[in-house]
């Protein structure tokens, strides 16, 4: 901040001396985009998630373990909203692709997806990136399906 002020100060002085133009040509390159946007973007956007029937029991189990550690603090399994929405019925409301991106690419979603942005307006807390891998998110979805009564 101070540096910026100093730089402005000096540039002003130099303008006063009629040498401003030259100095400005020499000034370091500004990357406007970098200056304004520096959010760390996690992962890459997912466009396809393949589900299979019946449910994979091993994935359901892994999904539940991840839920306990990384999701449960904010999401209950019924309709209760704690920090985020309860998970009851979530697989009926959201597509697997949307869920996967929300779990693994939450920063992109909150930046670009209108549905995700609507949730943020309601909950007022950015859903955290909980460092969940793509395979793990697939297991979480399997657990969500089980929670919604699929077999």
């Amino acid at each position: 901040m101070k540096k910026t002020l100093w730089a402005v100060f000096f540039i002003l002085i130099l303008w006063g001396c009629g040498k401003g133009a030259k100095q400005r040509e020499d000034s370091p390159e500004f990357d406007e985009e970098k200056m304004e946007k520096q959010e760390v973007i996690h992962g890459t956007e997912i466009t396809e998630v393949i589900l299979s029937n019946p449910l994979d029991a091993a994935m359901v189990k892994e999904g539940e373990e991840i839920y306990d550690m990384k999701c449960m603090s904010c999401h209950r399994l019924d309709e209760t909203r704690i920090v985020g929405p309860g998970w009851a019925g979530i697989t009926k409301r959201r597509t697997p692709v949307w869920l996967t991106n929300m779990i693994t690419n939450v920063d992109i979603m909150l930046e670009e997806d209108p549905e995700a942005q609507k949730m943020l307006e309601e909950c007022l807390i950015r859903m955290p990136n909980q460092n969940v891998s793509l395979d793990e998110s697939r297991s979480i979805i399997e657990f969500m399906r089980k929670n919604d009564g699929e077999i």
Partner: protein
Amino acid sequence: MRTKYYLISLALGALAVSQTGCKPGSGGAGSSELAGDAAQKVYVAPGTHDEFYSIVSGGFNGQVSVIGLPSGRTLKNIAVFSQHPENGWGYSEETKPMLNTSHGFIPWDDSHHIALSTTNSEHDGRWAFINGNNTPRIARISLSSFKTEEIIEIPNSGGNHSSPFITANTEYAVAGTRFSVPPDNVADVPISSFKQNFKGYISFISIDKETGRMGIKFQLKTPGVSYDLARAGKGKSADWFFFSTYNTEQASTLLEVNASQKDKDYILAVNWKKAEQYLAQGKGKKEPGSYTHNVWDEDTHMATSTLIKEVMTLDPKDCPDMLYFIPCPKSPHGCDVDPTGNYIVGSGKLAAVIPVFSFDKMQKAITSKAYDGEFDGIPILKYEEVLYGEVQKPGLGPLHTEFDGKGNAITSMFVSSELVRWNIEKLEIIDRVPTYYSVGHLSIPGGPTAKPHGKYVIAYNKITKDRYLPTGPELAHSAQLFDISGDKMKLLLDFPTTGEPHYAEAIPASLIKDNVRKIYELEKNKHPYAAKSEKETRIERKGKEVHIYMTTIRSHFAPDNIEGIKMGDEVYFHVTNLEQDWDVPHGFAVRGAQNAELLIMPGETQTYKWIPTRVGVTPFYCTDFCSALHQEMQGYIRVSPANSNVPLKWGLGNSPEAAAERAVAGK
């Protein structure tokens, strides 16, 4: 003569300050045109990063600062030999053992010199080492977590100043005692028996290649002198270590006068490879000596402190051809080895010349036994036989030398307050530039390594005076950044520092920034009191000890309502941060706790001890603004009289009132 330089410097400075508008300057850095140029060179645009990390000792704050260059912005202060209320270091149960010593818990030290790990004498970006001078210690800091991972105490030592300088492949850090002392096990001797009973111990601390784990490999029992600074050899001299000495007069009182009698003190050359051979031959002797070894574990998130009671020593009398003294004028301070490993620069702080010694000549002098007597059985090599040459009239009070990688050295001059650049081979002065004021250490990125990165030199000044807005009697120590890419050194920037930086090293950001730790993975958290899910949160009573397994996530604690604590209990909050995203720590504090807050990183578990002092309901809360609902991130703990029978119970959102509120919120 030198006073004149000083006055000229002052006059130039004053002139620069008085410059206004468009008047052409005297060519000094203060003229507006050049200053504009300087501003551009240190300007780091918002959202972009500095080119170098500078790892800076904090001196009497016992810490280490991380400063970005060329901006001079302070990025972090790392607690090392200090408590840090900012994040609970030295207050939390897990970190307290890091500050344990054979004297007990010591939450302060005087940290002096940075040594960044090297491979083949080039920076490898893994660890920073720093010495604690007062209660002799060496610490190792991870350059991935920027956290102190290990502290080892040094026995038989008083004032660990000549430390922690490292060998070419980080095989060893050293600890040469500044204050010679009698050995710890026979320490009750008259002070006047200095010459008979006091020893100058030099410790070699081995460093594990993979883990960085330290251990005292051996101590050399050398004559009682003061070891000041040191550097390892490089390339052809890599098997050697060089230590500057003063008080070879062996005075124990009024050293200001009595330790400045001789025209020459010494640089001690140690063949550490030879020492290893003697050790392998069984020449070492284990002696009593108590010291602690404190190790931080990144998996269990806690430190352990081990007391060790003996130490391996080597007596030079049993180890010929291992040590040689090189005469050096006069009370030398810095003792710096150039990038090629051939030249050893002594900086006699009371001398009128800078002597440059040649490693090749030293080898010849040893082979031909060109001795000038001996000191306590250790051969003294003839000055002229080791000397490459002297830099004449360099300035007053030379202290330290760094290298620019272009065949030049830059030496700091404390008394005449300037930096002097000179050509090593020609021993000729090329340039000099004033510093404001009284420069101590200096730092060139990579300056002590075989591959200096050059570009800048930073002067760490001892006196600040009028450089910043006044802040009462105590002022921030001033650092100054100079451009050394051209023929002339140019002042670019003043920046204030924290504590009293002694030495600093700067390293290209690219060697560190991609390896930086961002979170602790919950799956790998092996803390015995971790609650890795709200399901695992609970309270266990063990007599008077109450252990609360608690979790945090934006924005609540689990549990957040606790009852059944009684007066006389010791309450341990074991708080696990369930977040897994970078830069989402949670804080924790309880009213009336005689402690500092905890700052718990994502995935980490830390423990907060609280001994209730009164009956009643006490709030606790998150101290780090974490989300829009941060103000709501709080809880209550009820303390009842010692004889009460309030049962232990806990919960989160499970009171009837809360259930009702939730039902409303759900709609």
